[in-house]
């Protein structure tokens, strides 16, 4: 297997708290990920500024979904760093060779990835996976919407939305219900509060899923192909909610094949192929005058 490597521009981040840059919400630096022998993310760097909407496009298997799953640590990474609001996601940095790292009260031997060892000798740092509780706390600030909705089928629409505010944030039930109803209204489903997900259309389920993520008042929203599992006539209603969200200034990373949406809403379009960020720029630059051959080929196939 290829040894995880680390490039020089990362060194600035090692060994200290990153400079709190209030304008940068997501800062991914040289992220590498392998699935077994398959190198799915290759030195991926991406910055997302506050209130920015970034649409990630690219052929299937290009690593775009894997990348946004790394942003809230649903996937582990093997090297690099991902910061959200200045906090390193999913890992803790420790001095190398300082005995066994203690995670959750038990010594962790070698099952957790040791990533990003500084090459220039002397000390160096290791990344070890953070405690589950801390990762959970970080995820509270990052909303995610899935391709297959993943609503909780044993709960009504409203219960889906208020579940996390009550049980994760500890919000009083009544307060959560008020917020939940407001969110249902915002996604145009106020009448469906007592309906179970299996009685809703795909588009309605996805709008509930967006409301559920928003109920945690996240600083960042991740959308993983939110319209790919929808019938064509339902795509519009979901995109409408997302456009509204972008206009209100939510920071968003959207993996999507909806080029119309990207053109209209995105501040920046990122083209990924084969685990690499091929090209990024404004929608006009990427769609009208792509500089890379791979972007041209991809766009010619889907437009």
């Amino acid at each position, binding site marked *: 297997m290829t040894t995880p490597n680390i490039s020089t521009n990362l060194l600035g981040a090692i060994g200290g708290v990153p400079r709190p840059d209030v304008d940068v919400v997501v800062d991914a630096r040289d992220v590498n990920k392998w699935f077994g022998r398959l190198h799915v993310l290759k030195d991926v760097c991406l910055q997302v500024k506050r209130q920015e909407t970034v649409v990630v496009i690219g052929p299937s298997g290009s690593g775009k979904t894997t990348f946004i799953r790394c942003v*809230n640590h*649903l996937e582990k990474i093997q090297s690099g760093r991902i910061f959200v609001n200045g906090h390193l996601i999913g890992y803790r940095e420790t001095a190398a060779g300082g005995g066994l790292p203690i995670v959750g009260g*038990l010594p962790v031997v070698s099952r957790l990835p040791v990533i990003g060892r500084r090459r220039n000798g002397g000390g160096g740092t290791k990344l070890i996976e953070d405690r*589950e*509780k801390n990762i*959970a*706390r*970080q*995820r*509270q600030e*990052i*909303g*995610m919407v*899935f391709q*297959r909705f*993943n*609503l*909780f*089928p*044993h*709960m009504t629409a409203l219960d889906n939305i208020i*579940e*996390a505010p009550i*049980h*994760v944030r500890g919000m009083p039930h009544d307060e959560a219900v008020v917020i939940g109803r407001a969110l249902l209204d915002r996604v145009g489903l106020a009448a469906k509060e007592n309906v*179970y*997900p*299996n009685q809703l259309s795909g588009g309605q389920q996805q709008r509930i*899923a967006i409301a*559920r*993520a928003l109920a*945690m008042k996240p600083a960042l929203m991740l959308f993983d192909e939110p319209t790919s599992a929808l019938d064509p006539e339902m795509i519009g209603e979901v995109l409408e909610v997302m456009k509204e969200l972008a206009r209100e200034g939510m920071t968003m990373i959207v993996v999507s094949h909806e080029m119309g949406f990207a053109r209209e809403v995105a501040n920046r379009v990122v083209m990924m192929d084969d685990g690499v960020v091929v090209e990024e720029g404004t929608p006009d630059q990427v769609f009208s005058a792509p500089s890379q051959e791979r972007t041209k080929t991809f766009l010619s196939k889907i437009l």
Partner: protein
Amino acid sequence: MLVGCLFLLALVVSGCSSSKAQGFTFKADVFLKALNPTSPGVTGVLYLTILISVVAQLIGVALGVLAALGKMARILPLRIIANTYIWFFRGTPLLVQLVFFYYGFGAAHLWGWDDVTLFGFLIPGVIVAAMAILGVNEGAYMAEIIRAGILAVDPGQTEAAKSLGMTYRQNMTRIVLPQAARVIIPPLGNEFNNMLKTTSLIFVLGVVETYNHYVILQGQNFRPFEAYAACALWFLLMTTIWGFVQGAIERRFARGTATGSSAARGPGLRSRLFGSRPQAETGIDALGGH
């Protein structure tokens, strides 16, 4: 079920007629007296059988959840503990477990099985032992059932829960286990049916429960046929009633599923009593396990 009753009746009748040659007469009065719930001791032993079954099953479910989670844990020692537990209790006869942990541990002064006072009730040590050993044994079997239930829940549910900031425990208790319950409930019902009957084994500890009551009775009246027939009928009644309760619970837990609306109606009384034709069976009927 009706066919079953008829078969039992035929058995009794044929037993009477064919055995007459050897001088056996079925004594209906002895049988009815043995069966009569107002006869001394009968209601008491029935309650005891049900009480021990319920408590043992509850212990079994609790241990089953822990063992299932242990088996799936990322931490190796937890997996080893869970696997060893399941391996031992599924690999040895329950009868041996009962005598070993009660008499064996008692003789070796490893565990005394003292009386326990719970909510103001004094529970004799031997009953505590029976409940505990039956429950621990049951937990090993429940573990596999619960593990299958957990694995049946879409992994996307856990991802959604994680993305909302839920911890492992919150995800399990709020999201995964309630959904796994739907898969677990039908086999759990069958396990409880088994448990009702399996409690008869605790006669080896000297507990007078339903079976032991009739063993003692036939020892007094020398009428084993009538006594054991009454015993069998009582167990049959308990498991039959449980069958109806189980059906009601399964329909309750079917809500929120794609088949929820049809399951809400469920099979009618008629089909439950007489069985339904195969082509009339829907998926949920097959799940209902009647």
